[in-house]
């Protein structure tokens, strides 16, 4: 860049000398002009000539060379050189702007760990994270970045996960807990057993997604690629027509005047402003979103997100915490402890979250030797023999089937009720319920303000529970008791309800709704941190479990799209304006220069705004 600066300085001095030297010198003035041109534009001309030999005709260098030499041939020395001078100044600014954006992108990507402290036969060696294998032991000191995903086997500390989640509150980790690569260890030394190699690690996946998000191009990007392909040749052809036709048809038209207009055409014929600024805008938006804990897997998804009309939520794990807890134990004829013990054992073989919560509430080891004859009854519950007693645990249907009468205060309970019968005698029930997330209601309200027309909840849960949750969250619609394939059907029905331009987003936890995530226009997975399945299946991954981040993502998307549109309209507008005015002979080549480099610089700085998403 220094070299470029010198070139501009010397060239400008020679140019000034040419301007003030008087004509009495005759050739002196021309000599100053020519030497100034050679200093300033020599490399451009050289590149132009070289590229012609390589078969690359219509590039910037060629156009600038033609425009400036053309100007000098029609005796407009001052303008020819000024154009070259300004072009170079513009290029300097442009490379500065590109350099700056590359640096801020690098800063965005600065979550890549440089090394890992690998423990090797009582020795600690610094190695590349790539060289560490699963099962290896690494030491992470305070202030260091966690290089690989793994489990803490010694020590405890606070870790800052903000680079991954956008969440500024540090998390505490201790023995047995997982730490994720990319987070920063704040205060304690921890020893970690590596669980995944670097290639598969969280930090590498995030970097990969952000870097390659540009591969899936948005409509705006595809538009400018196409535009750029036709724009330059069309303008060049027009320029030739402009130089040749008027003098041919009108006697009074002066050749040099029209050549001058044609040369201005050439100056604005590069679509650089668009080609640089639009991808930069989307990259900025995606990068900014990742800083806030939202991974967007492509510019096209960012574009869709801005046009979301219908948001469909899965209930469990998305709007609710997905953690079932025993809320109430109501025994009949036996003690609370005995009821809990029997039911925890009877349900212990099931993988259902309800069984997990029962085990959690029971709190003691399950003794498998006590359980025999376990039989799952689909849609009803389970029967098992525990300590020689025949235990039935399940819903009201199961009790009815065995003609056991139950207490009927179930109507007032929100949650899942598990009834228990021991040796065909009713023994009471246990209420298990899921909690609504703190920010769910607010998220739904805010979505409405972002022009989302419809919010819908789909769930496999029963009508009572889901209805109450939906009412509390003020959702527009709710569909209950759905099996996984019913969810796809519902989403397909809803897809028909949106307008032609609008998009439907499905928000799920990515665990068992992958087909639905894929079917929706935009699949959003929640709580993606550390979950490969969610990252794979979705278009947008929310790293935390906050539904409010969907609103953040939509706002970022809208801002990004807005900037892209501004740039497209501004750049094309100025260029077309300059073309029309110069065709009419109303503007000088100076305006054309602004139409080229000036617009590029302004568009780049505008694109920069997309990176700033702190307040969204």
């Amino acid at each position, binding site marked *: 860049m220094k070299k470029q600066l010198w070139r501009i300085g010397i060239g400008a001095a020679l140019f000034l000398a040419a301007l003030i030297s008087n004509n009495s010198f005759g050739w002196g003035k021309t000599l100053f002009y020519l030497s100034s041109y050679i200093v300033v534009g020599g490399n451009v001309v050289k590149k132009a000539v*070289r590229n012609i030999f*390589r*078969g*690359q005709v219509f*590039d*910037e260098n060629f156009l600038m060379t033609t425009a400036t030499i053309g100007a000098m041939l029609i005796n407009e020395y001052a303008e020819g050189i000024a154009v070259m001078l300004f072009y170079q100044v513009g290029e300097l600014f442009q*490379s500065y702007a*590109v350099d700056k*954006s*590359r640096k801020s*992108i690098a800063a965005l*990507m600065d979550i890549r760990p440089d090394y890992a402290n690998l423990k090797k036969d009582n020795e600690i060696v610094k190695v590349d994270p790539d060289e560490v294998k699963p099962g290896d032991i690494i030491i992470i000191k305070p202030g260091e970045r966690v290089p690989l995903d793994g489990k803490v086997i010694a020590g405890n500390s606070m870790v800052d996960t903000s680079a991954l989640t956008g969440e500024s509150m540090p998390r505490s980790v201790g023995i047995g807990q997982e730490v994720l690569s990319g987070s920063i260890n704040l205060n304690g030394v921890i020893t970690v057993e590596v669980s995944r190699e670097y290639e598969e690690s969280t930090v590498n996946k995030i970097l990969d997604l952000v*870097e*390659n998000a*540009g*591969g899936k191009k948005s409509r705006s990007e595809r538009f400018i*690629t196409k535009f*750029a392909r036709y724009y330059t040749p069309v303008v060049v052809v027009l320029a030739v027509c402009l130089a040749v036709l008027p003098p041919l048809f009108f006697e009074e038209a002066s050749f040099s005047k029209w050549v001058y207009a044609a040369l201005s055409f050439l100056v604005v014929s*590069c*679509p*650089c402003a668009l*080609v*640089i600024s639009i*991808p*930069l805008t989307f*990259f900025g938006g995606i990068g900014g979103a990742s800083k806030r804990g939202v991974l967007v897997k492509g510019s096209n998804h960012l574009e869709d997100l801005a046009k979301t009309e219908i948001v469909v939520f899965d209930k469990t794990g998305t709007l609710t915490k997905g953690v079932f807890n025993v809320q109430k134990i109501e025994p009949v004829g036996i003690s609370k402890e005995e009821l809990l013990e029997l039911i925890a054992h009877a349900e212990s073989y099931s993988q259902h979250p309800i069984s997990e919560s029962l085990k959690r509430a029971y709190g003691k080891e399950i003794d498998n030797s006590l359980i025999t004859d376990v039989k799952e009854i689909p849609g009803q519950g389970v029967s098992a023999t525990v300590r020689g007693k025949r235990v039935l645990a399940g819903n009201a249907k199961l009790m009815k089937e065995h003609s056991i009468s139950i207490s009927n205060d179930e109507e007032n309970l929100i949650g899942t009720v598990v009834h228990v019968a021991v040796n065909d005698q009713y023994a009471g029930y246990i209420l298990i319920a899921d909690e609504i997330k703190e920010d769910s209601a607010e998220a739904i309200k805010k979505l409405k303000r972002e022009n989302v027309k419809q919010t819908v909840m789909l769930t496999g849960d029963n009508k009572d529970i889901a209805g109450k949750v939906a009412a509390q969250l003020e959702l527009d619609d709710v569909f209950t008791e759905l099996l996984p394939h019913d969810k796809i059907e519902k989403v397909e029905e809803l897809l028909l309800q949106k307008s032609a331009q609008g998009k439907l987003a499905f928000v799920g936890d990515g665990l068992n709704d992958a087909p639905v995530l894929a079917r929706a226009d935009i699949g959003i997975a929640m709580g993606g941190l550390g979950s490969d399945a969610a990252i794979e299946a979705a278009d947008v991954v929310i790293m935390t479990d906050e539904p409010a981040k969907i609103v953040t993502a939509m706002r970022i998307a809208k801002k990004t799209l807005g900037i892209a549109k501004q740039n497209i309209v501004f750049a094309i507008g100025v260029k077309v304006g300059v073309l029309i005015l110069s065709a009419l002979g109303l503007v000088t080549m100076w305006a054309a220069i602004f139409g080229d480099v000036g617009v590029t610089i302004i568009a780049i700085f505008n694109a920069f705004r997309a990176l700033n998403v702190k307040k969204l």
Partner: protein
Amino acid sequence: MKKRFILEGLDCANCAAKMEEAIGKLEGVKEVTVNFLTQKLVIVGEEEKMPAIVQAAERVIKKIEPNTTMKSA
């Protein structure tokens, strides 16, 4: 098969677009991305044709922007 390269000295956005187009037309290339901002080139192509693709891509890049060098990432 996916290969990643760093394009050192990639200074012109329009050239990046041209490279992407030209490499995309090479035989055996399934997908190609030239990222002007991160100066990265990613080629997805048929495994057995990869060495030929890489050589051809190098020629394409040199032809479009002689100051750019392709380094494996």
